[in-house]
């Protein structure tokens, strides 16, 4: 990347830095406002009524909120784990093997990425209500919508996103590496374990983070898949808003924000740790590239 440096003090330099600050303001001003008003001692969200921690205390005491937070976290972790495995396997199948119906499978796999959330949600609703009816009829099982159905619906859309990300990484990998591993006495499993997997690990990690985020964020599909007993935090918050907005919402949002920041930091830290241990990771490579572009 070769750049032209604007002369300091010139109109161009001012305009450039002005734009940058504007963009930052656009990103972060709402966040700052959100954080400030979560400490406001006034039932009205937009009015400052002095400092208080009572909204956070309310959050801690609010058992339904707590409950939905745990559901969110459990759904996110479980659906991510399962969709990472299934999505990676799907990506491997599509990139490495030839089989009957491959094109159809390829197209169908990406359907959840394309179709609108609402359509997906209605599909899930129908699927679960029919599924539960049939299960009751055939096996006498008494199922209700809740944690399981939410998790299944999240897995359903996450598989697509994971396999898109992993496949991008796989297609960039030199296939001869796997042949070299086979030539060097590795069997198929060990060639995957020691050569393919380390090569696509950044893709898998990226897919997992994406799946985690999508699962934690989802409102529409979850709304249709959740039952009266359990629901996720975003859906619960959405319901609260309809009953009236208080700074409790702000407090909840700040906590969710803090959690996602922690998640991002964690992913960076784990990448750093891996750097120290086995050499370079994706982040490291990106850093090297930007270093060399600075020097060049």
């Amino acid at each position, binding site marked *: 990347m070769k750049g032209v440096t604007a002369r300091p003090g010139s109109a161009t330099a001012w305009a450039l830095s002005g734009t940058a600050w504007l963009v930052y303001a656009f990103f972060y001003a709402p966040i700052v406002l959100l954080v400030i008003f979560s400490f406001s001692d006034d039932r009205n969200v937009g009015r400052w009524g002095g400092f208080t921690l009572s909204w956070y205390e309310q959050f801690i005491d609010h058992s339904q909120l707590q409950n939905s937070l745990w559901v969110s976290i459990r759904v996110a972790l479980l659906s991510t784990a399962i969709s990472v495995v299934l999505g990676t396997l799907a990506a491997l199948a599509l990139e490495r093997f030839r089989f009957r119906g491959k094109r159809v499978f390829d197209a169908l796999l990406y359907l959840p990425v394309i179709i609108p959330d609402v359509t997906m949600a209605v599909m899930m609703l129908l699927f679960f209500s029919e599924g539960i009816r049939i299960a009751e009829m055939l096996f006498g099982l008494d199922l209700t919508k809740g944690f399981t159905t939410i998790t299944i619906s999240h897995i359903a859309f996450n598989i697509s996103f994971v396999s898109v990300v992993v496949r991008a990484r796989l297609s960039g990998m030199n296939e001869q590496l796997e*042949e070299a591993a086979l030539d060097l006495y590795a069997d198929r499993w060990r060639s995957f374990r020691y050569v393919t997997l*380390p090569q696509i690990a950044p893709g898998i990690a990226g897919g997992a983070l994406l799946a985690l985020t999508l699962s934690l964020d989802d409102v529409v599909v979850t709304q249709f898949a959740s039952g009266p007993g359990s629901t996720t935090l975003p859906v619960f918050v959405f319901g609260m808003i309809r009953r009236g907005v208080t700074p409790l919402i702000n407090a909840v949002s700040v906590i969710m924000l803090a959690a996602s920041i922690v998640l991002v930091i964690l992913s960076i830290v784990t990448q750093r740790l891996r750097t120290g241990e*086995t050499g370079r990771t994706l982040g490291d490579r990106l850093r090297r590239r930007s270093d060399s572009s600075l020097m060049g």
Partner: protein
Amino acid sequence: MPAAVPAVGLHSITKRFGDVIAVDSVDLEIADGEFFALLGPSGCGKTTTLRLIAGLEFPTTGSLRIFGDEVGTLPPNRRPVNTVFQNYALFPHMTAEENVAFGLRMRKTPKSEIEPRVRDAIALVHMEGMEQRRPDQLSGGQQQRVALARALVNSPKVLLLDEPLGALDLKLREAMQLELKALQREVGITFVFVTHDQGEALAMSDRIGVMDGGRLLQVGTPEEIYARPANRFVADFIGHANLLDGMVTGPDQVTLTNGITIAAPSDIQPGGRVAVSLRPEQAFLHSLGVAPGHHTSVDGRVEQVTYLGNALIYRVSFQWMHIDVRAENRPGRAPVSAGDEVTVSWEPSSVAVVQD
């Protein structure tokens, strides 16, 4: 010539990809300790043949033996061969040392044995001090050395090399040619290497197999292939050749399409359509009418002179045909320029009669 038990034996090996026949009933025996080149233009089936030996492809029909053992259906990890891949295919997430140790680790070699063997292999290719580098921190030549060490450390019975020098620049390629040859003598392992570069094949190999269109056209020493090409393709592909079209009109006699009859020893029946192959450096240029008596000679006119630095190429036309004559650029060379009437001559034994 092949020893009693050949290192590699291919018997009527055919490989089809759908309708395409990549390798067409190839019979080939490569002797133990031989440096063998598979030579041909791209798409001739030479790489597929190598991959068949490696086990990365399986033959459609035919038998493939390595030191007498049938291996045609074995996966690559169960064959006593190792491969140096075209672009080296070093594992990017491992150091040079880890790359070299990979094969030994996969074979569950005891740790105490891995370390000295890896050290020896790295020393063999002169890469000491580079053990902890990753492939992207190595130059092309260094990567190639690591790839060689990674294959040789396993003491394969046969080493397969797919265009091993293709990715290197010219100077380095020439240096590596000599080094590879020396390395092969040192380790004494059978080397089978694939190349499209006829100069490389001539310079390095004990024997060459020339391939085209999936078929093995000729197998022989560099001298045999160069002096006695089996057909027109081989004559044209190896080095530079004047190919004069004609027909066998008598014992050891060919009449060219322009009506000139010349002596050309062959065992082809009269009436056969042939080409007479004459290497430019085997032809000599004389003043008009002055040619050694025992030589075959034709009179013609110099059409073009190409200066190469170390040599000159004279294109001499005679009756709608032309012959390129190569002369070394030595002192005392009589000046010849375009338009001069000259005589071109050659020893009758230096031509080869080839069929299409």
